[in-house]
C-alpha cells in the first residue's frame, strides 16, 4: 500500500478529484495549507504599509491506495494539476504499513 500526498494549486482541486475518481480512487482527504517553494510569496500594500506574504495558500491532498495503482495515481495528479507555471506543487509518495476501517475492523488492502 502507498500513501500519496500532493500539494496543488487550490483552483485545481476539482480537476484532480475528478481525475482520481476516474481511475478508481474511492476516497481522499483535503486540507487547506500555506507554504512556499520556488514560487516565493507576494507583497501587499495597505495605505503605504508594505507586507511581504511568504506563505501562499495551497491545497494538500492525501490518498491511500493499493501499490499497483501508484503509477496511474501519480500520472492522474500530474496531468490534472499542471498549469505549466511556477507554483504547481509537488507529489510525495510514502509506503503505508497498515490501514484499518474503524466501522468493520477490516484491515490491510481490504480497508482501502
Amino acid at each position, binding site marked *: 500500500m502507498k500513501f500519496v500526498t500532493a500539494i496543488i494549486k487550490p483552483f485545481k482541486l476539482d480537476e484532480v478529484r475528478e481525475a482520481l475518481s476516474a481511475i478508481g480512487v474511492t476516497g481522499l482527504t483535503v486540507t487547506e495549507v500555506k507554504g512556499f517553494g520556488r514560487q516565493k510569496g507576494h507583497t*501587499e*500594500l*495597505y*495605505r*503605504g*504599509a508594505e*507586507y511581504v506574504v511568504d506563505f501562499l495558500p495551497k491545497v494538500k491532498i492525501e490518498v491511500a491506495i493499493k501499490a499497483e495503482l501508484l503509477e496511474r495515481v501519480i500520472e492522474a495528479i500530474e496531468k490534472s494539476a499542471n498549469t505549466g507555471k511556477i507554483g504547481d506543487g509537488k507529489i510525495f509518495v510514502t509506503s503505508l504499513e497498515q490501514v484499518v476501517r474503524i466501522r468493520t475492523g477490516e484491515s490491510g488492502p481490504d480497508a482501502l
Partner: protein
Amino acid sequence: MKKLFASLGLMFALLSPNLVLAEDAAPAPEAAAVESAAPAMAAPAEAAAPAAEAPAPAPAAEVPKLDSGATAWMLTSTALVLLMTIPGLALFYGGMVRKKNVLGTMMQSFAITAMITVLWMVAGYSIAFDTTGMAKGVTNFYSFFGSLSKAFLAGMGKDSLTGVIPESVFMTFQMTFAIITPALITGAFADRMKFSAMMWFTGLWSLLVYAPIAHMVWSGDGGFMWDMGVLDFAGGTVVHINAGVAGLVAALVLGPRLGYGKEPMAPHNLTLTVIGAAMLWVGWFGFNAGSAVAADGRAGMAMAVTQIATGAAALGWMFAEWMSKGKPSVLGIASGAVAGLVAITPASGFVGPTGGLVIGLVAGAVCFWSATSLKRMLKYDDSLDAFGVHGIGGIVGAILTGYFAVESIGGTAGSMAQVVTQIEGVLITIAYTAIGTYIILKVLDLVMGLRVTEEQEREGLDIALHGERVE
C-alpha cells in the same frame, strides 16, 4: 454676509424679551421659536429682515413658521447621519483592524453612539447651542461655552422651532454630529485602548472639546469663530479637524501598537471597509445637504458638490497610488472617497461645482500623501488614519473654502482675506483641540490608565475586553 449678521442680530434682539417669557410662563409657542442659530439659517433671517428694520408694530406676523418640506428633509438627514456612524464607520474601521480586534472596534462606535446620545440630551446640546448671554461682536465666556439653561433639553416642546424646523429635529440632527465626531477619533487609537478609558475619554471630550468648538463656530452672533467670519458649512473644523487632531494627540499619548512596523497588521476584511465607506458616502448627503437646515437650492448645491468632490477625490487617491505604488487598491479608492467627503464638508453650501472638483482632487492626492508618507516620516501610529484623512482633509477643505466660496451660493465670496480667516479658524481649532485632548488623556492616564496590558493587546480586544470573538 454682514447684512445677514446684522439682521440676525436684530431678530434676536426683538425676540429676546419673549424668550424670557417662554422660560417663565409655559405655553408660548411662537416665543420659543428662534433660539439657536443653525449653521446656515440664511433664508429665515432674510425673511425676518424687513420686519426688523420696520418700526415697532407687527411682530407676530414675522415669527418663522414651520416649513414641512424642510422638516421632512431634516428628519431624513438625521437618519442618514446616524447611518454614517452605525453601521457605516463601525464597518469602515472594523474591516481595517486585525481580526482579533474587530468586535472591540465596532463596539467603540456603537457604545459612543449610545453614550453621546445621553450626554447630548443632558448637557452637550446646551453647551453647543444655547445662546444666553451672547451678542454680536461681544466676546465673553458665552462666546466659547453655551450656558446650561437648555440642560436636559429644558424649554424644548412640541412647538419649539429652530429656524423653520422643530427644535427637536434640529437637536437630534446635531446629536448625530456629536456622535460621529468622537467615533472618528477611535481610528487613531484602535487596537490598544482600554474600553473604560475610551468611554471616559470620549464622554469628557464631547462635553469639553466638541460642544465648545461647535458653539464657537455654529451658535450664531457672539460665537467666537462665528463672529470672526469663519466659514464652516457642515463641520470641517467642528467635526473633522477636531476629531483628526484629537486622534493625532491620542496616537502620540498612547504610543504605537505592539509590534508596529515589525509585525504584519494588514486589514482583516476589506469588504467590510468598502461597505462602510459606501455607507459613509450615502450618509454624507444628510451631513452636508442637511446642514442647510432647509430643503432649498443651497441644500441642492451642497449635495451636488459633495458628490462631485467625492468622485474626484476617490480618483485623485487612486491615480496617486497607481502611479507611485503600481496598483490602484480598493482600500485606496475607498479612503480617497472619504477624504473627499471630509474636505468638501466645510465648503459645501459655499462653493460651486468647479470648486468642489478642485477641492476633491487636491484632498484625494494630499490625503494619500499624509496617510502613506507623512505618517511614516513622523513615525506616529495613527492606526486607521483618523488624522491623515480627517485632520488633513479637513484642513485642506477649510482653507480652500475661503478661496472657492461663491457669493450667490453662501453669501460670501472667496478672497485671500477669507482664506486668512479660514486659516485662523483652523489654527484656533487645532490649538483648542490639541490642548483639551492632551489634558483629558493625561488626567485619565493618571487616574485609570489608558492602554490595555501587553498580554491583552496580544490576545486581542475582543476576547480580552468583551469576552467574545469572531471566527
